[in-house]
Structure formats: C-alpha cells, structure tokens
C-alpha cells in the first residue's frame, strides 16, 4: 500500500515537464508536493492518474500500474484525482456532482451512506444539495470537488491545488478538512500546492520540485525549518 514512483519522465511537447522523479509515499501519509509555477507538479499528478501519458519510468500502487491505466479504471482501484481548478460540473446540481463519483459502484444504499458522511464533513454541501454547482462559492466548489472524489471511497487521493483562488480563511478551512479526512479515513494523500507553507503545515512529508526534478524531500516540519526552502518557497 505504498505509492512508489521510480524514474518518472513526462514530456509536454518538446519540454520535459517531469524529469526522472522517484519518490515513495507510505500508506496513511499526507505528502505535500510544492514548487514554483511550471515546476511540473500538476503534470506529475496527471501522470499518476492516467490523464497524461508518461514518457518513461514507473509508478505503482497496491501492485497496480498507474501509468498505463485509464483514469476511469484507476478509480476502481481506489485512486481518486481532484484536478486543478475546482473540478466540479457547474451544469449539474451539488447532489448530482456527488452521485457522479459513486456511479460506477452501482450501490445506491452505500452511496447514500458515503454521501451522508461527506455532508457531516461539509455541512454547506448538504444545505445546497439541490442547487446547481454553478451557484456555489469558490470554497464550496472545492469542498464539492473533494466530496465527489471521496464518494468513490478512495484509498489514494490526488489533490491538485485545492487552495487556488480562495480567500485565506477558506484555504485554512479546506486544509484543515484535508488533514482531518486523511487521518479519519486512513487515506494516502498527494497534495500539490502553490501555497507551500499551508500545505507543509498539514503534511507529513514534503517534496520540493524544481524544473521537473526533485530539489528536496524531507519530513514536512524539517522542510519548513530548512533555511534554503524557506528562502526559495516560503518567502521568509
């Protein structure tokens, strides 16, 4: 139940976006992947969920080959990906967005139980269950996107920039929920974030990407205290 990535390379046209990345994330860990714009964070995540084809290398989880499986298949293996930019469908209602995440399970009763648990974590979603996702605020959309991913009862959760475009107070709330969910549900989480400090504060381990390569990897707390990382990514 360990996520093992080895010598992963992903190309974006002529540019190598992810360059020989190797990492190991243990079960139940929350790993924050931080780095500047264009460091290859999103591409790394997209390769892990089968959205972007990899050039070479390997990535396995629970014995499943992540690089050569379609995303719809990976969901069935317990891998859920929340893509960048509040991945909800605005034309569908909040409830429909959630139900979508559990359609493949074909078990209405179980889905309802999962949905109720998600409503406990994010009560705002229950209040707005019948509304179109289009009417939600940015923070609520992010909650919905995470909620949709949780409907699949994942074991490995890939989160791409959940803080993007949100107000500081809302970011703090979302990060706290991610931390709580990881612990409560025993999830393994890969959290890609521009907001480096916020992500490292809730993470167990941190991975710093620079121009597609791993620049540093350590316990999250150690990275926060690392003067070089502080200067380059945390801004103080």
């Amino acid at each position, binding site marked *: 139940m360990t996520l093992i990535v080895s010598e992963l390379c992903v190309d974006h046209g002529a540019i190598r976006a992810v360059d020989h990345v190797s990492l190991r994330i243990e079960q139940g860990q929350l790993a924050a992947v931080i780095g500047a714009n264009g460091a290859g964070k999103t591409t790394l995540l997209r390769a892990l*969920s089968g*959205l972007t084809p990899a050039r070479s290398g390997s990535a396995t989880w629970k014995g499943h080959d992540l690089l050569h499986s*379609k*995303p*719809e298949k990976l*969901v*069935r293996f317990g891998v*859920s*990906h*929340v*893509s960048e930019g509040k*991945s*909800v*469908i*605005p*034309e*569908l209602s909040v409830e*429909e967005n959630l*139900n*979508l*995440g559990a*359609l*493949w399970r*074909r078990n209405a009763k179980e889905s309802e139980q999962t949905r109720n648990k998600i409503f406990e974590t994010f009560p705002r979603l229950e209040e707005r269950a019948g509304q179109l996702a289009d009417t939600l605020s940015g923070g609520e959309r992010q909650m919905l996107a995470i909620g*949709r*991913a949780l*409907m*699949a009862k994942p074991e490995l959760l890939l989160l791409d920039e959940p803080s993007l475009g949100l107000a500081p107070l809302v970011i703090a709330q979302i990060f706290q929920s991610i931390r709580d969910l990881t612990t409560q549900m025993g999830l393994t989480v890969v959290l890609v974030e521009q907001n480096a400090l916020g992500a490292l504060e809730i993470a167990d381990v941190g991975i710093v990407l620079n121009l597609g390569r791993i620049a540093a990897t350590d316990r999250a707390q150690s990275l926060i205290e690392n003067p070089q990382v502080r200067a380059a990514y945390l801004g103080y």
Partner: protein
Amino acid sequence: MFTFIDTLLIGLTSGAVYSLMAIALVLVWRSTRVVNFAQAGQALLSTYIGYECMGRFHSFWIALALAMILGAGVSALIEMLFMRTLFKRNTGPIAGVAPIIATLGLLGIIRGGIGIFMGGKETIIRPPLSNVGFTISGHTFALSPFKLVILSAVLIMMILLSLIFTKTNIGLALRASAYAPEIARLAGVKVDAIRTLGWAIAGAAGAAAGMLQTPNGTGALSPDSLEFSLLLVFGFIAAVIGGLESLVGAVIGGLLLGLVLAIVLMYVNATLLFMTAFVLLIVVLLVRPQGIMGKKAGRRA
C-alpha cells in the same frame, strides 16, 4: 379560419418530425461535439431497413421498432469504428474540422451505397393508419390518425428521453460526459461507452424520423428523395435554433420551423420554403445566438 387551423396542424406534424431529427443531432453533439451530417444518411438507411422489415413482417409498427433498434446499432458502430479512430488519429488545427467533414463524406457514401443496391427499385411506405383528416361538422381537418400518431410519438420520445437524462444514473453519466468529459472520467464514468450510447439513441431517433417522414409525405423512398433532404436541412436548422444543447430546444425549434414553413407554404409561395428556413435560422442566430434554449455563452467547464 379553417385554412389557418389546418396550416397550423400541418406545420405541427411536419415540425414534429424535424424535432425528432433535431433530437438526434443534439444527442450526437452533446456526446461527441460533432455535427453529424451523416444523420440523415443513417435515417435513410434505417428507413430502408424498415421497408425491408415491412415486407417480411407486414406490420409498420414492427418495422418501426426494428428500424429504430438497427438504426441505433448502425449509429453505435459508426461511433466505435469510425469516429473514435478519427478522434484519436487527428490532432492540431484539422482535429476540429476533420470529424465534421468525415460525417459529410459518410452521408455521401451511405446515399451512394443505397443508390447502388436499391436505386432502381420502386419503394413505397404507406402510412399504417389513415392519413385522411378527421371530419368535424362538414370540414375535413388536416389532422389525420397518422399525424396524431406522429405528434404523440415525438411527445412520448421527448418525455422519455428527458426522464432518462434527468432521473437515471445513465442519464447522469450522459450529461456529465457531455459537459465535462475529463471530470466524468476522473469520477469513474466510462466516457467512451457513454458516447457510443449517445450515438445509439440518436440513431434510433433518426430512424423514427425517417420512418414517420416518408409515409407522411409522398411515401416514396429513394436515396435522393426530397423527404430526406428536408430532414437533413430542417432537422439541422431546428437543432441550431433550439441551441444545439437542449432536447427541449430541439423540439421547440422543430415545431417553430414547421409552423413557419407551413404558413409560408399556405399563404406565400412554395418556392420560398428553403429560403424561409434559412432566414429564420439567421434571424435566430442574430437575435439570440445561443439558440432558444441555449445558455448565454460563458464559462465552459
């Protein structure tokens, strides 16, 4: 007064058939973002299948059902074998246009193929019910039992499809795949299979349009019959007027087009038929570019 009522009735029935065709085009557009010009060719093929079935089973209704089922199958095959490969192979600037040109080509191939195999034969589909209007207090109205069937068939199909789309899991998957294929995929929806399903339903709707259109017109079926040109052009215009995204829009677009055309036919001049349709299209596009039921252009997920 009677003339006017009759005009409206004729407009509604012919419009109902355009609606069916428009529904087919909307379903394909929603599932793969392709305007399927081959839809009329598929409808033609399905109607020939229906014709053959009539010869064998001597029932219009069985033939209609079989034409719809086989039409759905043909449409699904076209999506799986033809369109899917096309989407995979084409990238760059041509990718947006290639599938549409390909459907035009397919239309030609289907018409030509049918011409080769069925061309010389006289093929007539007669209405299963009387197409002579009901007579009330001396006046024979333009509403016949068969036209009533057409109107109800379209209404039933629209209600059925709306229910499938809004109330069932398959419908949720169909909508999600149309609006945001990547998110649907991440949520575990097998988007490829759902697309094929969208094409299949469209094939069935187009087959129904062909099977109802032919006997409601002259009944003569040929690869280059006027009836199918009408289906192709007016079905497309109805779909665009309706906003290309909405089933309800397709039905409203079809009925509106049917009514306007019937009024022009009756009160102005038959030669203006096609021109009127295009004028209506342009007016709608100018006044309400998103179509009658289309949403204002905005963020697209």
